């Protein structure tokens, strides 16, 4: 298989930062191109304020969810619960405001805490039982799913804190606040993995557990922290849903699982762990978002939408792949 052939002599492999950078620039180019095409073919419709707002408002949650998945991918784990957890935290947040009558800021804090706590539990379970994280999160996902439904049954929460909603739906200088929040979160995450020793240790554990351990890194701690961060981010996404949509029910999050994987993986994050790319993840989320927009703009026959999404996902990855010399290892 061609993975054995080194590109050309020196340097044997491109530098890893470059490889990520390659992916990111390609994705950026793709996003821009897609956007330009959209703008051109819809006579600038997508440049109009309303559309822009819609694009970025509903980009926020996919971005944060992608990052939440990325946090666990960084140590080579997966979190199947991100979507359901987002929904649960949203329901908790709404419940705290509507049923418990707490002020919005307390409810938000409560939701974030819930997310982090569940993430922590996931991490501890993985470390203590040594059960594959995939299965652990699969099991906890079922539990959270039950809890999510338990909060308010099938009914919908509406008309909670108007200040929170108007904040969530509002915008600063034309930029939706939820999107700003998502960007802020992305920057924090990037910073965490780049400059915070804890974040570095996560990547070390993901990149080569044995070496990490021999270098005094506790892989167990890395696992727990990764799951905790993932949970916290899912909580944040839940809060965003509450603030943005103004109405939530137990179905929130059911469509988030696959996107949560698609964004980081298209963004160049390694499933095996050790490599993360915040910018790539966010750009990938944007590209996927543009497909939704295209559907609405061209009123595409629903039957074709999924075909197109599939083509875009594969195409995006292919292009990034072809642009960067193949790294070794199994696909």
């Amino acid at each position, binding site marked *: 298989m061609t993975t054995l052939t080194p590109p050309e002599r020196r340097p044997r492999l491109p530098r890893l*930062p470059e490889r990520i950078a390659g992916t990111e620039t390609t994705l950026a180019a793709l996003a821009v191109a897609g956007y330009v095409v959209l703008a051109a073919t819809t006579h600038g419709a997508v440049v109009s304020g309303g559309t822009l707002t819609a694009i970025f408002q509903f980009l926020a949650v996919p971005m944060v969810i992608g990052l939440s998945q990325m946090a666990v991918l960084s140590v080579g784990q997966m979190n199947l619960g991100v979507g359901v957890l987002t929904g649960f935290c949203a329901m908790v947040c709404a419940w705290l405001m509507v049923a418990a009558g707490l002020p919005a800021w307390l409810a938000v804090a409560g939701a974030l805490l819930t997310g982090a706590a569940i993430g922590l539990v996931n991490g501890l379970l993985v470390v203590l039982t040594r059960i594959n994280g995939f299965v652990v999160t699969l099991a906890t996902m079922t539990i959270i799913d039950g809890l999510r439904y338990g909060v308010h049954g099938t009914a919908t929460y509406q008309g909670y804190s108007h200040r929170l909603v108007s904040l969530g739906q509002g915008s600063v200088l034309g930029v939706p606040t939820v999107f700003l929040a998502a960007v802020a979160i992305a920057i924090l995450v990037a910073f965490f993995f780049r400059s915070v020793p804890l974040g*570095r240790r996560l990547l070390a554990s993901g990149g080569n557990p044995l070496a990490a351990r021999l270098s005094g890194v506790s892989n167990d701690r890395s696992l727990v922290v990764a799951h905790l961060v993932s949970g916290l981010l899912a909580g944040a996404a839940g809060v965003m849903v509450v603030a943005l949509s103004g109405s939530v029910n137990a179905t929130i999050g059911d469509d988030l699982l696959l996107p949560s994987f698609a964004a980081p993986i298209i963004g160049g994050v390694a499933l095996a762990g050790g*490599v993360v790319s915040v910018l790539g993840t966010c750009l990938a989320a944007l590209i996927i978002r543009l497909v939704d927009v295209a559907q609405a703009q061209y009123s595409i026959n629903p039957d074709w939408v999924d075909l197109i999404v599939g083509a875009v996902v594969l195409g995006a990855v292919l292009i990034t792949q072809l642009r960067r010399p193949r790294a070794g290892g199994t696909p």
Partner: protein
Amino acid sequence: MTYLADRLVKTFPGVRALDGATLRLQPGSVHALLGENGAGKSTLIKIMTGVLRPDGGRILVPRDDAGAHGKEPGPATDLVKGPSDTDAGLHEVRFSGPQDAQRAGIGVVHQERNLIPAFSVAENIALQSTPRRRGLVDRAAMRELARGCLDRLGVRLDVDRPVSALSVAQMQLVEIAKALATDSRVLLLDEPTASLTAEETEHLFGVVRRLRDEGRAVVLVSHKLEEVFAVADTVTVLRDGRSVAEAHPLADYTQEEIVNLMVGRAHAARRLDKAPVAPGTAPALRLDGVATALGHRDVSLSVRPGEILGLYGLVGAGRSELARAVLGLHPVTAGTVQVHGRPTRITSVGQALHRHRIGYVSENRKEEGVFLQQPLTRNVAVTVWNRLSRAGLIRDRDERDLLTTYQERLGIRLSGPAQLAGQLSGGNQQKISLAKWLAADCDILIIDEPTVGIDVRTKAAFHELIVHLASDGLAILLISSDLPEMVTLADRVLVMRDYRLTGEVANDTHDYDSTSRAIGHLLHAAAV
């Protein structure tokens, strides 16, 4: 003020790796730790660095170091027995993990690579000792630290390159730099020179001597006795997990005596008498003016049945790549490859193996030689499944028989057929990766760096084996950076430099001095 590993015992399922081994380190000395493959050297080092916990025995460190970390079962005098307890000011310590060993001032380069592929050189070197500012990673300081360490080794490397882009040799140097970065009082080096060139090795030893003069203790594990004698002061020899010589001045021994200690009985370095090849015989493998996309230019050579053709050169000369090109792993852009006189274009190892009976023993044991996560049976049988299978199915017994055959023939130390290849010591893994090709009984065998990290006795056994294979009529292309090995084995030696052949040396006399001089001359001659 000594560090002491006292009568350590360690058992792995099926194997007693250590059986009362003792290692006593004096500061300001270079201490050689010698032993055959599987003697327990790496295990001892893993215990001293908190990677493994001993089943028995104690580790004692100077009091002030002991103070530096957590659990202390109390003063060593509680368990007074044996000679070691005369050491005043020693404290028994139990390392709960590598961190503890680091805090106790013990730095290490493990035998197997331990780098984070995705991290840059600097990030790897600074992994244990990350410089911080206000709790955050201080990248500038980190680069400085890395450059400092690399300079001490006299290595030029871009510290921002990811290690995944480095050569084996370069990775090795980064490992050493990483150990230096911890600035510890004891430095354990487990076969650091296995993949280094002569110059790089010399540089390393320069650093080692400097460390010794700074009053640190350095432990050096190596199978290359020449370099051991060049740098070490004292020696501990392990045999079957027991220390048969404890912290003796190395000067008291000759290489011969050391070898006998390791082997357990007088080890006569037999002269290998190999029948010369009949002049008339047609070449089994023949390259004519071969060029590759990797930069090989007009490479012509031919190996005849029963002949050992040596391909010598420095690391990076392009020998392995040439071999891989012949196997179809890299495109051949010009020239012809002939097998048994028939011009062929080999496109895959499978084709080479099944159609042309060509085998390739890789230099990169861990990634390409063996399947670390698979049982030994499958590691050996993988090349012959097509032969073993009846109606598409394979019986375990056949595989086990195959394994036992080569276990006896190559003297492989294993605890059972179901053992995973990853659990063998380095040397034994190498034997497995060779056994696979012997099982496939090829006509043509390309052997790449067969004895890296392999002890003297096994090495001698390998050499005999290779000669036998040749005598049995195999055509062998031997790639090696080990000059003595070349001279012992090869009938003719081709020298490669910068992806070109610079000449050939007939080695019919097997006389070391003349041959090595001739080769050395070719090495530094301009490419023809």
